[in-house]
């Protein structure tokens, strides 16, 4: 009998995955026992959702993409019962999507899209909780820390601090009560790695946390998860209950003297709460404002007790490291950066989704070999890494290997793993404005330069995108950037100018084009465009009625025209047209 797995991560659900799942359920009711139906998490190929994997017990499983509820009947009929593979719908196999999975190395994502995240048994079957068992039965806490140090693992939340060293500090800190916190706040607005891991393989994070707690000498922990991730929170709750029941959490774990509990705290929507001291304040029920460090949380954190904070992906690496040994992990990567990194691929790239690669592969390899290149085979212009704290790396530099040091040299940062691909249709000034809008809104307001400086920078950027900038504005941007970086307390302000600085450095001519020529080379800034009407126009007169300056004229049922001297470039005609007849050039 064949087994069908429907990918029900958030990506799958938003593409209609639950409807597909229900359609399979209905089929099962009509034809009981004709196949086995299961759910799984994010398979990673978000660009082909809804994904359905079929396996028949022997042989390689294969995958169908873009499955809709009305395709389910045919699939059950022809394949699940008839035994005939429907070639047209396949996403994997010969000649299709070559390279997407082959060029990846999956450690963090080892179980994502493979197991049912609601089943602890399936996790255990794939060596789950073996790392914890090994740590508790055969290793001292010091041994555990030694392995993590040997692995070279660095924090995946953005800062890249060596994880083993952090654990050592917290272990060495004075105090009998110590806390572990898992940072699942994932604030970068273009990133979804942590969410996918939590949704698709929650136990790997719980196991990583338990191992860390044993190493550090902690018995209590929190997962701080953003409230916008309801599915992840539900799966975590379920996983914690299962782990308790099986004795992997709770008291006297696996017959040892080690006790450990995990609680979930839901965030309440503030980007700055991803910063560790702000996060601690938020758990304590206060406004999530960062404070000066030192003391670092390792010395004085939650309720002023020593606290070890790590990111979701950092924890998800830990069970693998303990099971396979630190050296096995350190085999992947470069001198400076060991292991693998997960990236959330988005933007103008053909294959969007989750990708895990060993450190040291180049950005181009990820964009072209794994993700199939740029939409419409356009040219790569730049990638953005590190979200609002990061920067844009121009295509000419995308041959550098993915490695903390190398990426820092470009002015961007590794960040938590959002990787946005841009082509000639992306305006770099607008990208800078986008991230500044975000940081300006999310600044908690404590530091003057962060609060007011980002606002001033944003005003300048808006001016430039409106065609009202001056060359002196560029110097002002640079000056403000320096001041904000120096005078801000936390990483939010210290890194907020990065998107502006990197685009100024590598794409200055685009800023100049906006200022001097009043042109947006990417045709994105609406104030700098010319609107025209093409022959798709049906003469419905909607645009003429909508135009606030009566710049559009034309008879009913006749082609309309825009009178450029009257046009104020508000873009209204473009958004009201129902026939794609208004063009921006």
């Amino acid at each position, binding site marked *: 009998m064949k087994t069908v797995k429907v990918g029900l*991560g*958030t*990506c799958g659900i*938003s*593409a209609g995955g639950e409807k597909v799942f229900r359609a399979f359920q209905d089929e099962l009711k009509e034809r009981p026992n004709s196949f086995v139906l299961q759910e799984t998490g994010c398979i990673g190929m*978000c*660009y082909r*959702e809804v994904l359905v994997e079929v396996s028949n017990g022997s042989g390689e499983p294969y995958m169908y993409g873009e499955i809709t509820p009305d395709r389910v009947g045919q699939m059950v009929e022809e394949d699940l019962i008839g035994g005939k593979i429907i070639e047209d719908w396949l996403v994997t196999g010969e000649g299709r999507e070559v390279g997407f999975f082959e060029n990846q190395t999956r450690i963090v994502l080892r179980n994502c899209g493979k197991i049912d995240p609601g089943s602890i048994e399936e996790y255990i079957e794939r060596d789950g909780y073996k790392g914890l068992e090994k740590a508790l039965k055969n290793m001292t806490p010091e041994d555990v820390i030694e392995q993590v140090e040997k692995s070279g693992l660095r924090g995946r939340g953005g800062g890249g601090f060596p994880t083993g060293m952090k654990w050592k500090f917290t272990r060495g800190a004075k105090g009998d009560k110590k806390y572990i916190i898992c940072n699942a706040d994932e*604030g*970068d*607005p*273009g*990133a*979804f790695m942590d*969410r996918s891991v939590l949704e698709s393989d929650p136990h790997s994070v719980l196991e990583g946390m338990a191992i860390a707690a044993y190493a550090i000498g902690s018995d209590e922990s929190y997962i701080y998860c953003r*409230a*916008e991730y309801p599915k992840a929170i539900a799966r975590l709750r379920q996983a914690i209950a299962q782990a308790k029941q099986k004795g992997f959490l709770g008291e006297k774990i696996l017959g040892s003297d080690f006790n450990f509990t995990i609680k979930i*705290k*839901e*965030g*309440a*929507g*503030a980007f700055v709460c991803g910063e560790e001291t702000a996060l601690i304040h*938020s*758990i*304590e*029920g*206060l*406004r*999530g*404002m960062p404070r000066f460090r030192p003391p670092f949380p390792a010395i004085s954190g939650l*309720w002023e007790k020593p606290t070890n904070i790590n990111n979701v992906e950092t924890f998800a690496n830990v069970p693998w490291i303990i099971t396979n040994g630190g050296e096995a992990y350190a085999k992947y990567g470069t001198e400076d950066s060991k292991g693998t990194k997960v990236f*959330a691929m*988005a*933007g*103008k790239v053909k294959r*969007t*989704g989750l990708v895990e690669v060993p450190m040291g592969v180049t950005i181009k390899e990820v964009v072209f070999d794994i993700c199939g290149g740029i939409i419409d085979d356009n040219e790569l212009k730049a990638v*953005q890494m590190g*979200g609002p704290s990061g920067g844009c790396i121009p295509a000419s530099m995308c041959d550098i290997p993915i490695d903390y040091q190398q990426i820092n040299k470009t002015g961007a940062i590794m960040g938590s793993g*959002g990787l*946005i691909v*841009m082509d000639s249709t*992306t305006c770099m000034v607008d*990208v800078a404005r*986008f991230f500044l809008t*975000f940081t300006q809104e999310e600044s*908690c307001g404590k530091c003057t330069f962060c609060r007011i400086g980002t606002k001033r920078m944003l005003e300048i950027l808006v001016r430039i995108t409106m065609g009202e900038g001056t060359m002196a504005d560029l110097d002002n941007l640079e000056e403000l950037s320096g001041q904000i970086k120096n005078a801000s307390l936390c990483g939010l302000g210290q890194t907020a100018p990065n998107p502006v600085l990197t685009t100024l450095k590598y794409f200055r001519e685009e800023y100049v084009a906006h200022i001097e020529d009043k042109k947006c080379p990417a045709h994105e800034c*609406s104030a700098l465009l010319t609107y025209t009407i093409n022959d798709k126009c049906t003469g419905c007169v909607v645009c003429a009625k*909508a135009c606030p300056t009566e710049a559009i004229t034309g008879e009913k049922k006749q082609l309309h025209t825009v009178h450029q001297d009257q046009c104020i470039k508000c*873009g*209204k005609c*473009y*958004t*009201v*047209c*129902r*026939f*794609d007849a208004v063009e921006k050039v």
Partner: protein
Amino acid sequence: MADNNTQEFKPFNVDLWKYDGKKGALIPLLQSAQDTYGYVSEKAIDYISHVTGIASADIYGVVTFYAQFRTKPLGKNVIKICNGTACHVNGARPIYETIQDELDLTYEETSDDGLFSLLSVACIGCCSLAPVITINDETFGRLTPPKLRKVIRSFKRKAKELAKQESE
């Protein structure tokens, strides 16, 4: 805790099991109030202050700090425009402009008839369908202004019909 004053708040149905008397319970309490009523009312703040002993002003400070908490109720239909990076790069702005034009709403606003609210969210997790919006629990992806206009109009129609039925 349970003195006579509690009577006054009797009809107020906040999930008190979330309150274990420990510090740090404030945000879960506010979340539960918002889950129940759709927003955090002044009354809810007073009640939580009464139960926890935290000053109302401090609670208000927390409520206004976090984007999740609202001090006004939302409309019947909640439209969320994704302003994540992928959606931005793939054209979230024309989407916003279209909605603004159809419904005369800006972010964080509710229409006067109480039928629509417009919110902005960061990445809702289907970047491959960008640009994306959600209306209530439904996701609409790969939108263009004309496509979106059709969607909004059908919601408008449905909302009007429903309102009519209710008034009859």
